[in-house]
């Protein structure tokens, strides 16, 4: 509560129901809930209680310490920067919320630091987490080292191969990285395996989930930790420009940077919210093999239950979860946060899919014109600007959710496979020539 009040600049806005949605019972319309094995329920109840006391109630000054550590250790606030070349190109004011400048190079630290600190307040002795691209894993490893907590990270084997630098970073910060070999070895399997660890160790261990997914209170709690992105951006926009943006754009996988970027704007009806999902190679689904060559669960998914919540999912007609795909491992997930599923049904958030090619072009465009190398996840948002310029109003905030250093190998390899306009010739680095 205090979090909202302290950052709302207009004193007349006393009720912001959208900002607080789901806090009471974990339900977002028909979505949300707590679909987990019984062994985890007491831990989830304990966590709900801790969330209400420390995060909402600022008990023992938890939120004060969280904000202080986000500033001192994390480097907040991050800037809201005008993108001059993109503004010119699209004939609109384009502003970048620079979460890539947060410590660790992505928005993930906001949530990881909040949850590891909360685990400390709760008296837990061990941290576990899943990771897809490795961004949440590295953020959790950093936060665990910073707060002196032992930490184990589960990561799909395929993702480990795609994201080796992040594996090294986690190990350097003292975390144990456990490969998950089930299924295709991506985020979905890593979440399942982390839940299994938690079911066995729940009494002394906290599971730092990396997105606004999972059982209540995770979706609201992760949103509230990530909401600092939009609370800052909203204030920065009002202070700098004197007005709210017309549009806010963020990429969407599980949806933590998305909801973090939208949260403070949900109640501002004049601000259009665009969630950009990974369209992968195509939106067509192969029922036979159970593969969806995309991760567009908001755009194409159907309602179902996965990893503790009712939400929109990529699934076959029987309800088996499909293997998703994206050029960016951080968006490669068959589900999405229940709050986003709800906001899409309500028409408050517009989902859109941007495919691998357009994302890669966005990656190169931002790198070469603005001097910012974005994460491949983030690059989807810039693919959207290019493809859907006409859908946007005159002042657009785009969240640069992470930097692209971790993706250089993948970007070079993917660029070499395609004819990307304006991209440098990288064949000498792939052995192609």
């Amino acid at each position, binding site marked *: 509560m205090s979090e909202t009040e302290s950052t709302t600049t207009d004193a007349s806005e006393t009720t912001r129901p959208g900002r607080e949605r789901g806090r009471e019972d974990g339900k977002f319309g028909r979505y949300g809930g707590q679909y*987990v094995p019984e062994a985890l329920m007491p831990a989830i109840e304990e966590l709900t209680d801790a969330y209400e006391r420390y995060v909402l109630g600022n008990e023992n000054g938890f939120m004060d310490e969280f904000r202080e550590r986000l500033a001192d250790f994390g480097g907040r606030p991050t800037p809201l920067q005008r993108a001059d070349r993109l503004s010119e190109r699209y004939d609109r004011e384009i502003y970048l919320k620079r979460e890539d400048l947060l410590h660790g190079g992505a928005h993930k630290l906001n949530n990881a630091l909040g949850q590891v600190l909360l685990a400390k307040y709760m008296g837990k002795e061990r941290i576990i987490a899943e990771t897809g691209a490795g961004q949440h894993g590295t953020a959790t490893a950093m936060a665990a080292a910073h707060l002196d907590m032992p930490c184990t990270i589960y990561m799909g084997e395929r993702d480990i191969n795609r994201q080796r630098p992040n594996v090294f970073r986690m190990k350097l910060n003292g975390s144990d990285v456990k490969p998950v070999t089930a299924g295709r070895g991506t985020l979905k399997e890593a979440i399942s395996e982390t839940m299994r660890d938690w079911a066995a160790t729940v009494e002394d261990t906290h599971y730092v989930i990396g997105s606004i997914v999972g059982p209540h209170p995770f979706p609201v709690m992760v949103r509230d930790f990530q909401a600092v992105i939009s609370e800052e951006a909203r204030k920065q926009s009002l202070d700098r420009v004197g007005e709210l943006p017309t549009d806010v754009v963020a990429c969407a996988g599980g949806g933590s940077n998305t909801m973090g970027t939208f949260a403070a704007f949900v109640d501002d009806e004049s601000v259009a919210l665009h969630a950009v999902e990974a369209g992968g190679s195509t939106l067509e689904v192969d029922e036979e093999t159970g593969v969806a060559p995309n991760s567009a669960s908001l755009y194409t998914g159907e309602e179902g239950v996965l990893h503790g919540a009712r939400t929109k999912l990529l699934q076959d007609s029987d309800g088996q979860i499909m293997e998703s795909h994206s050029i960016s491992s951080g968006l490669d997930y068959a589900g999405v946060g229940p709050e986003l599923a709800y906001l899409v049904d309500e028409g408050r958030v517009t989902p859109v899919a941007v495919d691998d090619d357009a994302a890669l072009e966005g990656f190169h465009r931002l790198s070469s014109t603005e001097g910012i190398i974005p994460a491949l996840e983030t690059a989807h948002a810039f693919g959207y600007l290019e493809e859907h310029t006409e859908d946007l109003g005159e002042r657009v905030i785009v969240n640069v959710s992470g930097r692209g250093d971790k993706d250089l190998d993948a970007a070079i390899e993917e660029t070499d496979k395609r004819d990307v306009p304006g991209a440098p010739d990288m064949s000498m680095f792939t052995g192609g020539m």
Partner: protein
Amino acid sequence: MAGETPAAAESAEERTDDQTGNSEAIAAAFADGPAYVPYLAVGDPDYESSLAYVEALDRGGADIIELGLPFSEPIAEGSTIQGAIVRALDGGMTPDRFFEFVEELDVDAPLVCMTYYNLIYQYGAGEARSASDASGHAASHDGPRAFVERAAEAGLEGFVVPDLPAEEADPLRTACDEFGLDLVFIVAPTTRGDRLERIMSRVSGYVYVQARLGTTGAKTEVSDRTAESLDRLREYDVPKAVGFGISSGEHAERIVAGGADGIIVGSALVDIVAEGAENDDPVEEVADRLTALSRELKAGAERGYESRIGTPES
């Protein structure tokens, strides 16, 4: 204690319909002596072998059989049952094939379906989707009702749904009552107080007492937290079947001597199926091994029961 098990069977009729005891066959399974409740994933490693394996459990003395309908994200399962689920899915198992399997089975024991909620929820969603409105919003369908109706028609007597806590279970509870099926809930070593009340007010058939924390798997030691759990449940009049980690007749004996009304065994049996699949053993041989282990487990449970009530049968 001795009088508790028969009381549970008798009380089925007295209970209000949202409480317990829809299936007479399940009540009967606990009525005279301890119930041996084996689990196998249906379709592991293929449809035909799986039929033979489930029938082998029945020959081995199964009082209730839990049939796993494989789901792609089995978050409550350890590596053994995950392996079974992968083999079954690779072998083409689907909810519709599962129901055909149940119809084709020739067994005496009542059958309980163990699966995850998304498969229950999605069954029948297809029709609702084709009736979607123009905005693309799926019309809300009957939730679990279509699945439960089909399960009842196929001859199933109940469900265990590991990712469905009591808080989210009312639609399934209602559908089970409509079609006369039982809904079994899992009680963990960490379940206490209000949560235990909430579960016990919704459970029917039997309560699945999770012997230790973690996922399913055939561990050699059975946790002494089982005794604590059974103690907490003593006042409730529903049969208590203990599962997670039971793999031998000796385990079964100790668990039943400690107050359990039944034992649930999964991973130790799945191990036999997995080994058979790996070595390409003849189906009959694997089936015989399943029958033999079943007899050992059942005999162990009976020894435990005798030592508890202090009146040997013969």
